[in-house]
């Protein structure tokens, strides 16, 4: 059954139809929330909250955009509100707690682990909007037009945002690299210096 059909049924108060939509998009929304708030438990709560809000306001959804982008927008607003209320980004997701797939040997595991750690630390430093645009583009595969529908503004603004976000991420990844190299070259000096 297609999205518009399910949405139309959900708008008439059909709960099973809405739950079908939930099952379809829960992983994407959860992944987005996880990337934005960097906390699994909070991401779970925010995902539920986003679906709840979507169900409450689904009668106001006029199907002028895709249900998926509308849902992303609700989830991002929930995450922004959470971040605003917390005034901090929370602890980063601990990769050790999650299931790691696709690694073959212990050496590759270690390298991948270091890479992941570097990525999470760089992502943590990014502003929430840039994190959102990178997630929507690279992880969810949305076009600039769809990103502009989710985040507001024009598709050109979404492209500029994405470009800026990627450059910032590259800069932070590079700085993490340089820091690692400095620590390896002069371990005693680096231990005495503050990290940033």
């Amino acid at each position, binding site marked *: 059954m297609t999205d518009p059909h399910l949405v139309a049924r959900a708008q008439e108060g059909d709960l099973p139809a809405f739950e079908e939509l939930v099952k379809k998009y829960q992983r994407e929304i959860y992944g987005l929330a996880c990337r934005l708030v960097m906390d699994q438990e909070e991401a779970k709560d925010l995902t539920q909250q986003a679906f709840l809000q979507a*169900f409450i306001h689904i009668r106001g959804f006029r199907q002028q955009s895709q249900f998926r982008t509308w849902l992303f927008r609700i989830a991002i607003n929930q995450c922004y509100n959470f971040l605003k209320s917390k005034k901090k980004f929370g602890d980063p997701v601990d990769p050790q707690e999650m299931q790691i797939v696709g690694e073959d040997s212990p050496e590759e595991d270690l390298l991948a682990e270091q890479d992941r750690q570097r990525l999470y630390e760089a992502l943590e430093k990014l502003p929430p909007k840039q994190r959102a645009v990178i997630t929507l583009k690279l992880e969810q595969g949305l076009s600039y037009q769809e990103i502009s529908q989710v985040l507001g503004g024009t598709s050109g603004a979404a492209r500029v945002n994405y470009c800026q976000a990627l450059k910032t991420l590259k800069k932070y990844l590079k700085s993490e690299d340089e820091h690692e190299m400095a620590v390896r070259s002069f371990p005693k000096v680096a231990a005495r210096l503050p990290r940033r």
Partner: protein
Amino acid sequence: MKWRCVLFQRWLPDYPDGELSPFWRRRLEAHLRVCAGCRQESAEIQEAAQIYRRHPLPMPEADFWEAFNRELHQKLAQVNQAPAQPRWRRKLPYLVGAPALAVLLVFISSYLVNQQLPGKAPRQMAERQKQEQPLEAARQPVLELAKEPAPAPAPEMGRFREAEADQVLMVHQKAPGANGVDPEQILYVGLNDGLWQEDVPSWDVEAVIADLSPQERQTLVENLSSRR
């Protein structure tokens, strides 16, 4: 960095597999062939994107989603059972509040206008009183004259100034208390049709009191000031 590099580096995140038009793709490729700095920048951006893609967020197990759906189902069922509030009820505060606010604003504005012009209102009232006095007086003699068995002596015609062709100012000069009319009772009489005219187009006090004796003038002034 040259201005050309700045221009092309804005398109680097979309190269090679992004939403880049063929025109810009050709120009960018041509530029990358000759500019080492932009080539390096492009490689670093692609590497950052690759690192991100290489580490997707690991998804939780199936039991996590079961618990998630169970919790969400309870919340959704709770929301679904709650009676939906009718639309007019949601707008009730606005429907009641807007007229109340409008009335309040009108009241406050009228109050402020009266406060700001303290001398104007009494003057207006006095002018209105002046205009209404002859009209009130005009009604009294008509009633009194209707009650009298014998017609009262004809009042002398006073002088009139600037009167219209069909109107004459008539002043009763009899003393108050007698069968006649008080000095303050000044009438307009229509000469053409003989009917009482109630709508007074103009009024000149000086012209009226010119024909009065000093005692009558004094009485008129006292009456006017007492009413004011």
